[in-house]
Each structure stands twice: as structure tokens, then as C-alpha cells.
């Protein structure tokens, strides 16, 4: 009974933002103020409906246009996809609530002309994200990826500065090259297996040079988009240079989307045929990212650069999944841990960037050495960074801790001590650079500034995101149950988290 509804919700999750983007673009800014509030609520309702449908009747295969897989495009909607949709709604909701005040209050950021473009672009980005999370067709994924990359690039340019244009260009050309890598891989897969549907492909992949090459091309392309060390260099200028709400979207969702694809490709397609060293290699790159990103964040002289490098480091964590999951006994623990980590990172990082935007607005800049005592001006924004930061560090009781704990357990239990050490070292370094900022922010300022009146529309969204990043740990069990719905995961070994 629920299936048509679940399907309808899924369709609307893509269709509605697309229509909204179109409408917002044509209408200019007239219909905006209502939409800002209603849209996230409606989308949240639809995601909830989808999750209910999933809980009732398991994973959903939706054949678009009614064409069965080899001919048409299929959506594969499982727990992981809906979890990503849900976190997207949360972050988008916060960003939508935050953005009007941000653009109204930023003197430097462009004219009304350009902020007008923010809404259609954001809705397009939302549609692209949802479409990407739902799709199970390797070529359709290419189109959603392009939609995502181009949308992100344009959003960065809204900052209006020369630096942001340069950063956007660098991101764009690299992203395009990455897409072409991916597309070449798709072409090879199609040449050999004659289908683009992931479920059909997954059943028949063989261990041959063609599959390896196709897999490498696709994954390398996605790694560039995920900014995995050493292909991370485009990320900090782009994420730091964008307007704060855009930075939040990019760091929280866009890089996660390409990681999500790596995850899908790896676990749905390539894991059985991938040679073992590949997983270890990915893990090693992740470990380098954790260390290098943290070191750069420690050296950063601007708040947003610091947060952007933190994204580089935190993305590194996610890649520890590949070596850890190669031990069947702990594969599921590691898988759940990484996804929990990614979800809470999305919430926390969005909170960080939104709060940083508010702080930047109050201080008129974000050079760290000019932010002394800023905490007294914006206590709520600072507490948002505190809540989010604790989750990033991975201290209990936060979502970040849940992920980290499961990674640790997976590492220790499978005897892969070095990965466990990377996990804890990364946490320490994260604490290092975040406390560097906090110490500055709460230091006694020589010129104590007036406590600005709280701008609720700019400070409450990041604060709520921070709270969510912390409290998600108390839902970890439920999130894990959701994620297991239709997990295309070979439930090998004990798998159980608790004995």
C-alpha cells in the first residue's frame, strides 16, 4: 500500500526542488520569503515519508518510466540513500534559514542581482544531491555529478571576489577532468557488460584488466571530486572563498556526495573484484589526508581556511573504511562507523561554516589574529562552533564519537592497529587546531567589544546543527537500523556490533 507513496516521495524529492529552482529563477525574488521556510519543511516531510516506507517494506527499487533495468534508469533507495537525503534536508534547512540574513548583512558580497541567483542555484543543487543519492545507474550518476559540480562552482562565484573566481575556476576544471575520467570508466564498463544499471553490473563483474581500469578511472575521478589527499588542493580556497552558506553546503554535502558514490561503487560493484592492496592504498591516502589536512589547519591564518582544511582532514577518515572493511568480521562495524561519521561531519561542518560566517560578519574579516575575544560578541555562534567542534574532534557524547568508536573497534578487533592509531591521532590534531581558534575567541580582548544583539536567524541555525551533531549519537542505534535496510553489504562474518 505504501509503495506508490514512497515512490512518489522519492520523485518529488527530485522534482520539487527542480521545479522550485525553475520557478525561483523566472520569478526573481518575489516568492522567496515563504519558500524559505516552507520548502525545507515539505522536503523533511517527504523524507520522513520515504523513511517510513522503507521501514515498512524494505529497500525500494523504482524504475523510472516503468522501464526495467537494462533499458531504463532505476533508483535504488535503501537506508544509506535515505540517511543521506535526511542529512541533506537538515543542512539545507539550516542554510535556507540562514542565507537571507547573511546576504542582507554582507556589505562586501555582491549586489542583489547575484544573491537573487542563490535560490535557484541552491534548489538545483538540492535536486542534484537528491538525484545522486537515489540513482543506481552509472551514467545517470554522471549527469547528477555534473549538475552538482557546476552548481557548486556557480555558488562559489556568488562571493564576488577575484579569489573566489580563481578558486571556482580551479575547482571547475579539475572537476570536469574528474568527470571525464568517470565517464571513460562508464564507457568501458558499458562496452564490456552492456548495461549501465548498477544492480545488473554488480552481478557479473569479472576480474579482468578492463574492469580494473574502468574501476580505477571512475574511482580516481570521484576521489578528485572528494578532494582526497593529494588531490585536495582545490578544496581549501574554494570552500574558504565561497559565501558562508555556500561553504556549508559544499563542505557538508557536496564532497560527501562524491564520497557516497565511491562508497556505492566500492560496495555495490568493485569490492569483489578489487585487489587487496587497492583498499590499503586508499586507506593510506586517507591517513595522509588526516595528518596533512590537520597540519595545514594548524597553520591556517584564517578561520574559514582552517575549517576548510579540517574538511580535508575529516574526509581522510572516511577512507579508512576501505582497509578496515577488508576484514569481513568487522566490515559492518567499520561501514556503519564511517557513515555515522560522515553524517555527523556533515552536520558539524555546516554548523562550523555558518557560525564562521556570522563571526566573519561581526569582525568584518576572518583573520584569526583579529578575532581575539570575538566570543563575547557572538556567544551563540561560538557555542555552535563548540558543539560542532566537539563532534569533529570525536569526543563523547557526539555523533563524531560514535563513528570514531566504531572505527576504533573495527581497527583493534581486526588487528589493524595502525588505522586505529590514525583515528586517535587525527582526533588529537583536530582538537589542536580547533582549540587554537577557541582560545583566541575567548581570550580577553584589549578592546572589549560590545556584545552584539543576537541575530537569531544567523546564529540559531548553526547552533541547532551543532546540537544535532552532538545528539545524533543518541540516535545512533536507530540510524544504524535504518542504514542496514537494504544495505548492499555482504553480511559476511559476525557483522554484529555487539556480541
Amino acid at each position, binding site marked *: 500500500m505504501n509503495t506508490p507513496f514512497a515512490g512518489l516521495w522519492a520523485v518529488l524529492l527530485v522534482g520539487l526542488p527542480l521545479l522550485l529552482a525553475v520557478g525561483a529563477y523566472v520569478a526573481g525574488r518575489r516568492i522567496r520569503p515563504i519558500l524559505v521556510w516552507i520548502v525545507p519543511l515539505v522536503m523533511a516531510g517527504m523524507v520522513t515519508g520515504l523513511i517510513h516506507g522503507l521501514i515498512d517494506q524494505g529497500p525500494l527499487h523504482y524504475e523510472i518510466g516503468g522501464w526495467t533495468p537494462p533499458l531504463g534508469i532505476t533508483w535504488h533507495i535503501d537506508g544509506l540513500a535515505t540517511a543521506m537525503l535526511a542529512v541533506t534536508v537538515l543542512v539545507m534547512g539550516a542554510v535556507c534559514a540562514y542565507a537571507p540574513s547573511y546576504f542582507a548583512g554582507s556589505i562586501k558580497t555582491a549586489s542583489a542581482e547575484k544573491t537573487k541567483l542563490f535560490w535557484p542555484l541552491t534548489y538545483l543543487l538540492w535536486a542534484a544531491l537528491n538525484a545522486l543519492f537515489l540513482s543506481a545507474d552509472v551514467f545517470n550518476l554522471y549527469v547528477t555529478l555534473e549538475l552538482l559540480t557546476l552548481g557548486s562552482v556557480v555558488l562559489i562565484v556568488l562571493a564576488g571576489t577575484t579569489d573566489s573566481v580563481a578558486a571556482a575556476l580551479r575547482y571547475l576544471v579539475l572537476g570536469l577532468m574528474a568527470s571525464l575520467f568517470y565517464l571513460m570508466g562508464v564507457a568501458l564498463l558499458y562496452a564490456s557488460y552492456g548495461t549501465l544499471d548498477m544492480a545488473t553490473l554488480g552481478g557479473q563483474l569479472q576480474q579482468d584488466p578492463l574492469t580494473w581500469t574502468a574501476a580505477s578511472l571512475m574511482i580516481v575521478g570521484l576521489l578528485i571530486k572528494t578532494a582526497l589527499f593529494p588531490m585536495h588542493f582545490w578544496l581549501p580556497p574554494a570552500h574558504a572563498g565561497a559565501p558562508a552558506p555556500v561553504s556549508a553546503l559544499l563542505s557538508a554535502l557536496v564532497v560527501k556526495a562524491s564520497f557516497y558514490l565511491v562508497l556505492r561503487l566500492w560496495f555495490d560493484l568493485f569490492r569483489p573484484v578489487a585487489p587487496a592492496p587497492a583498499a590499503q592504498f586508499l586507506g593510506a591516502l586517507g591517513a595522509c589526508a588526516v595528518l596533512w589536512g590537520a597540519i595545514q589547519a594548524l597553520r591556517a591564518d584564517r578561520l574559514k581556511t582552517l575549517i576548510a582544511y579540517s574538511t580535508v582532514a575529516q574526509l581522510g577518515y572516511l577512507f579508512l573504511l576501505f582497509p578496515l572493511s577488508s576484514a569481513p568480521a568487522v566490515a559492518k562495524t567499520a561501514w*556503519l562507523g564511517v557513515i555515522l561519521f560522515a553524517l555527523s561531519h556533515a552536520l558539524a561542518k555546516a554548523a562550523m561554516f555558518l557560525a564562521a560566517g556570522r563571526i566573519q560578519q561581526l569582525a568584518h574579516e576572518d583573520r584569526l589574529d583579529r578575532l581575539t*575575544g570575538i566570543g*563575547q560578541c557572538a*556567544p551563540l555562534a561560538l*557555542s555552535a562552533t563548540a558543539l560542532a567542534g*566537539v563532534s569533529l574532534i570525536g*569526543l*563523547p*557524547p557526539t555523533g563524531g*564519537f*560514535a563513528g570514531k*568508536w*566504531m572505527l*576504533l*573497534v573495527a581497527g*583493534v*578487533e581486526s588487528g589493524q592497529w595502525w588505522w*586505529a592509531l590514525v583515528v*586517535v*591521532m587525527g*582526533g*588529537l590534531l583536530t*582538537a589542536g587546531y580547533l*582549540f587554537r581558534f577557541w*582560545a583566541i575567541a*575567548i*581570550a*580577553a*580582548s584589549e578592546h*572589549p567589544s560590545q*556584545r552584539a544583539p543576537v541575530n537569531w536567524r544567523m546564529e540559531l541555525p548553526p547552533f541547532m546543527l551543532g546540537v544535532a551533531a552532538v545528539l545524533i*549519537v*543518541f*540516535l*545512533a*542505534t*536507530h540510524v*544504524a537500523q535504518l542504514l542496514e535496510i537494504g544495505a548492499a553489504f555482504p553480511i559476511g562474518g559476525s557483522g*554484529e*556490533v*555487539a*556480541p
Partner: protein
Amino acid sequence: MNFDPLVPLLLIASSLVPGLIIFTLPEDLRGLRTALNLLGASVKLLLVAVMLWGVNHGHTYETEISFLPGLDLTLRAAPLPMLFVTLSAVLWLVTTIYAVGYLEGSPNRGRFFGFFSLCVSSTVGIAMAGDLLTFLVFYEMLTLTTYPLVVHRGTRQALQAGRTYLAYTLGGSVLLLLGIAWLYTLTGDLCFKEAGRLADLPAEYTPTLRLIFAMLILGLGVKAALVPLHGWLPQAMVAPAPVSALLHAVAVVKAGAFGIVRVVSDIYGIEFADRLGVLMPLAVAASVTIVYGSIRALAQDDLKRRLAFSTVSQVSYIALGIALGTPLATIGGLVHLVHQGLMKITLFFCAGNLAERLRICRISEMDGTGRKMPWTMGTFTVGALGMIGVPPIAGFVSKWYLATGALEAGQAWVIGVLAASSLLNAAYFLPILYRAWFRPPTGRVAQCEPAAGVEIAWSLLLPPLTTAVLALGAGLLAASGFSPLAWAKVITVREFGL
């Protein structure tokens, strides 16, 4: 309906909720803030009283909160947790009163009291934790909530101290986290259980268990200020006096010591730990800390630094008591958890009063302070003599049980350690008392105008008086049924299954 599972939650909420509300209050709503604080503290005391009664009458207060997949947070009231909970609840009330008076007129009080309340919530959580993971959760919350208190003044020195504090404690956390994760992969369960839960693991795990023990103790030892992990403590003295009092007597240092007690007695089990041969190194480390801390204290002229090194030394009595592995020594260690708290908090309150009223923080400036502030220095004297171990003050009881426990364990060298420590205690406390009472006032003390009424505001005088009386009472009435000693005996009986 059974309300028992709610009680532990309420106990934590009684300080957490006021803390969170205080954050949202405007800075100048002083009255409401104070009222909230005192209300929370009183409610907490009341709840503790209810629970004490309940635990004695066979109620079990146990709460489970959904947490990680397969791992719930559990809060459980048992005799050992109640000992620590009671201490925190009582000392929170007096420290709050003291802090309200002490911080009168200084900036950022909202932030201060907010974190102060969170800090106490974490401590209560640590006390009530029913398993090692819950313990870790609150232990880390404690680290986070004390950092803003340590750097409260925001000066360069305070920030430096905060950095050091974090470097040490987060480093310790890493070891603790790794140790706990490793333990979890071995046993799949982290619940605390009287007499421990590891004894039935196969023998091949012995080396692993030793290694895990070392990791856990090193991790906890940072907060418990075991030498050489004590470096943060003297630096953290830059914090305001109520913070120092809280850090030393209840929250941070005690949390570390309490953690050591729990790991030894409720995870490994004292007897099993003894069989593993891990208690001896712990006893030696504790003894070294006791002597080293005392020697360093001798050399300090700054009063708060001297007290800090004294804490380094005294807190290790707790670890020493547990590490000796006999019932009597365990009683001594556990009861010292309370006694040291009462005495040390008194001393810090007094140091704060001296700094507040006379603007002195060096021992060399303390000549004649007894004449100017007789009440303050009177309570100081009680605390100091208690630390030395002069009967009938509480400190004597702890040392007595430790010494007899050492003999029971056949570790006579510990007597030497205790004696040396007491001598050193005397050597660094008695000169202070001599200066205060028998030297004529000089310098700032002499210039100080006599106060109109009492020597200092009541909110600053009552707390040390109360704690001094409690310390005295805990010693005088040690044999009674409701003294800390009696409680420690109950815990020990259960632990050893006597």
C-alpha cells in the same frame, strides 16, 4: 509506576539544566542566576539524600539510555558511586556559594557558572557511570567543561595553562579510549561489576590485559596527576580560586583517582589485578608521586602552587590504597577520596580569601595573617593539620587505615612512604601556620585596614568553615554509622565479598 530509573537522570539534570539555562541568561541577571544555582544544588542534595536512603533500603537506581549500536549508556547507583556523588553534591553547594561571592563584579560570570554546573553534572555522571563507556563519556565531558573554567580569565598565562591542560588530558584520553576499545573487543561488555569481570578470561590474554591495564591507568593517571603526568596541575592554578577548589577537591583530580579505583576494583577486580601483578607497579607509582609531590611542594612560595603539589601528593593516597590490594588499605584509599576533598577544598577557599581580602598569594607575605583574618586562618589550620595527619582530623583516619593495610599486605616499605610524606607535609604546612599565627604582620597584611564587621563577606567565610567542620567531623565521628569511613567499609566488604 517505578520512579527509580528516573532518579539518576534527575540527579544529572539538577545541575545540567540550570547550567544550560544560565548560558542563555543575560549577564546582569545576577539574582536569577544565583537562585538557579542554589536551587540546582539543593535539589541535587535532596536527591542524593533520597538515593542514600534508597540504596540502604535495597532500591536499585539504574537507567539505560540508547547510545551506540549494542552499547547503552548506563547509570547505576551503588555504594561506591554514592560515596563520590555525595561528596560532589555537598561540595558543589558550598563551592557555588563561595564562587558567587568570589566572582562578584567580574566579567563573564554567566559563562563561568554555566560551565561550572556542567562540570558538576559531568562529575556526577562519572560517579554514577555503570560501565566504562559511560564513564568515558562523562570523563571527556569533564575535560571539555573544565577548559573554559581554567582559561576563564582569558589572560596569556591562563591560555597557556589551558593549552597545557588540554595537551595532557587529551593525550590521556587517547590512551584511555584505545584501552577501552581494546577491552571491548576482548570482552564485548564494559559493565562495572563488583569484584571485577575479567577473572574468567583465558590465561592467554594475560599479557594483553596487563598492557590494557597500563593504558587505562596511564590515561586516568593524567587527571589523577600521577608523576610524571602531573605537569598540568600546578599550571592550572591560574584559574579563579573556586575553580582550583573544584578541580582539586571534587572534579578533575578526583575523577582520575575515582577512575583508577573503578578500573582496579570493578573491571579487573582487586584480587584478579593482584594475580596479574599489575598492582605493585601502581603502588610504586603512587608512592613515588606521594613523595615527589611533597618534595616539590616544599620549594614553592606561591601558596596555590604549594597546595597544588600537595594535591599531587595526597590524591595518590587513593591509588596507593587500592593498589595495596587488602581490605584495610582499600578502606583507607576510598575514605581518603572524601577526606582529601574536604580538607583540600578548605585550604583553597582560604587561599582565595587571602588573595581576595589581602591581595597576597605568596607564603612569604603571609606573616601575621592569623591576626587579620582569624576565622579564615583557623579553618586553614584545620585543613593543614588534617593533611599532615594529626588526629582527630579526617586525614589521620585515612593514613591509619592505609598504614594498617600496608602491614596487612606485608608491604612495610609503604609505612616508610607514609611517614616520609607526613613529615614532608608537616614541613611545608607548619611554616605557613607559624607565619600566620606567630609572626607580626608585614607588608600588605600590615597595611590592611581592619574590616568593619566580619573579616570577609559571609559567602566567602561560610564555605571554608563548613568544610572544615565536616573534615573535623569526619575524623571525630569516624566510628559512627554515617561517616565516610563506615560507607567505605561497606564498599570494601562488597568488593572483597567478605
